[in-house]
């Protein structure tokens, strides 16, 4: 059973179509990336999954069916615009929000103590939220998201506004949660984080799905049109299928003609006794794929 199953959901606000027939599945225990440029419909998609908005059409199944009150207790959600009650002490805020997730009072007390210790916030428990630094508020928000040990974590832009130390901490936390068996869906446009963390992803733009699948499969879709070569001696003038060569950080990037096999280039280099230090198929970064897809979309319009 998939943790989240989204089937052709659409949502229009006024005249603007925010989400247009988006479908994807999030499998148990994976980190799933929901990507897209600003205004692509990521947050609306998340809100539909969480039953904050009803879709105009399409269906969403969470943990095998429609959202229920019981299921809400099994989901941890961290919105992009972080939200905590500013005027009350940290501990009271955490206790209240944890109680809304169905945790019994004695357990809440113990869990809050543990988390405050772990996140170095124990000394600030009596302070009002508005008196905490931005980083501390981020940590408090994370506690709210994690305290009830959810089965599904949905995090909108987990790294926005974090310094490198806190970014690392959140990353470790996400991996730790995944190792615990938690399904994580994160929406972001920081591609290097996705490359590092995500197993699969969906890329939406203008409310529509433009890429969907395993990270490696997607990369492969966009490879095989260049190789990176570093050699002790100069490369021969003519190589089969190479239409362009350009220096790139000490290596030479050989752009191949459509349909040309990298194997043929390797074979020719070996045949001409070139001593190779590096021969690598140039895999595009997710950033490059993202830009290519999104710009390609834009140019088609």
């Amino acid at each position, binding site marked *: 059973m998939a943790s989240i199953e989204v089937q052709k959901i659409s949502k229009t606000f006024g005249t603007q179509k925010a989400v247009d027939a988006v479908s994807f599945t999030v499998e148990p225990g994976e980190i799933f990336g929901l990507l897209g440029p600003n205004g692509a419909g990521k947050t609306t998609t998340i*809100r539909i999954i969480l039953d904050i*908005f009803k879709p105009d059409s399409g269906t969403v199944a969470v943990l095998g069916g429609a959202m229920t009150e019981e299921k809400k207790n099994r989901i941890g959600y961290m919105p992009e*615009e*972080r*939200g*905590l*009650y500013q005027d*009350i002490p940290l501990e009271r805020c955490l206790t209240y929000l944890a109680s*809304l997730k*169905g945790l019994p009072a004695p357990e809440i007390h113990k869990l809050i103590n543990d988390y405050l210790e772990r996140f170095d916030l124990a000394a600030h428990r009596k302070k009002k939220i508005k008196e905490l630094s931005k980083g501390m508020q981020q940590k408090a928000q994370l506690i709210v998201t994690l305290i009830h040990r959810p089965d599904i974590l949905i995090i909108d832009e987990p790294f926005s506004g974090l310094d490198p130390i806190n970014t690392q901490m959140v990353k470790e936390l996400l991996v730790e949660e995944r190792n615990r068996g938690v399904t994580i869906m994160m929406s972001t446009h920081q591609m290097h984080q996705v490359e590092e963390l995500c197993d699969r992803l969906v890329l939406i733009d203008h409310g529509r799905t433009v890429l969907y699948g395993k990270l490696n499969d997607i990369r492969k879709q966009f490879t095989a049109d260049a190789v990176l070569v570093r050699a002790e001696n100069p490369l021969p003038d003519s190589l089969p299928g190479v239409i362009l060569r350009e220096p790139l950080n000490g290596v030479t990037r050989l752009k191949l003609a459509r349909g040309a096999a990298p194997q043929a280039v390797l074979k020719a280099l070996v045949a001409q006794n070139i001593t190779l230090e590096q021969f690598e198929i140039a895999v595009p970064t997710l950033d490059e794929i993202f830009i290519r897809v999104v710009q390609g979309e834009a140019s088609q319009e």
Partner: protein
Amino acid sequence: MRKFWLIFRNEYLRHVLRRRFIFALLSLPVFVALLVGVGLLAAWSDYDHRPVGYVDLSGFFLNARQVPSKTDNLFPPPIMQSFSSEAEARAELQEGQIQAYFTIDPQYLKNGTVRLYTLGSIKGNTRDDFQNFLRYNLLSNQPQAIAERVLNGPEIVVQSLSSNRKMASNEVLNILLPLISGLLFVVVINISGSYLVQALVEEKENRTMEIVVTSVSHAQLMAGKIVGNLLVGLTELIIWLSFGFLGLAFAQRYIPGAQNLNINFDFIWLMAVTLLPAFVMVAALMAAVGASTSGSREAQQWAGLFTLPIVIPFWLVVPLMESPNSPLAIGMSFFPLTAPVTLPLRAAFTDVPAWQTIISVLLLIACAAAALWLAGRTFRMGMLRYGKRLTWREIFGKAG
């Protein structure tokens, strides 16, 4: 259901436990008590507890008795002390033992002449008290019931045949009660309403709403907020009214003149059945406003629109009192926003037909239910709209 209680408890306690709330709660009764206290102090400073002397030259008051009075009266009438000669009375007056003395003319029955001798001006009700004393003793041969009736005078009940209107002189509280309760209702609904609007707008603005609605159903959230904030207002109302009744009980016991004030308890239930649904209705409307507007200032302005009709009966209090069965009065008892003040006010002056009360209360309940529905719907659609208000078309159109 458990989460409803959590929301309710949080909403209620976060206001009730604030110092600001406790201050506001106590400031009104303290203010009123202070006013009454100053009044009592002024009366006390004007009150002379020394006996009043009299020299009876007529012979009618030789064995005179004191007029009985309640022992716990704060301002008991002075003791009337008999002197055998004027010289003796004057000596006592000059020594300050008595505040004044009267001489009763030998021809008192014929000419009614009584002379009053004082050193300066005479304070308070001494003249009235002495008059009462004379009357009481002149009537001492009469049966008790006749004597008391003559002393207390008649209880005049004004009955108007044209409007079925009646009013007894000791029922002045029955006019004041709906007016005061109406006023408190307006104050309290404003307080509850603004807390509610504030709670919703605040959660929208600080983005906590998004976390809360992914933990609790919309219905439980809305119900918890409305009931919680409503109870904050009701707590205030009940505490203020309790202070009011305490004050009244005090006045009835200790303050002369207030001892004949009575409350017609029919009002209490009439006010309960009109004020409660009205509370829910206005609170739900306020919640709808809080959920659909984009900022606290705008929400407050809209909320003002609902409280305006509630105070209209106060402006029209004179026509309502004069003709409590006019079409205007009946219309205003049916219109849900004016009913809570109009209906009890009319009931003070006329027997409101049962069918009118029933229709009015049913309309209020129906409107309260409709307002709750509207609040829930507006909330669901408007809660995550930032910086943009909902349109009427969106609210009454397709579900969001």
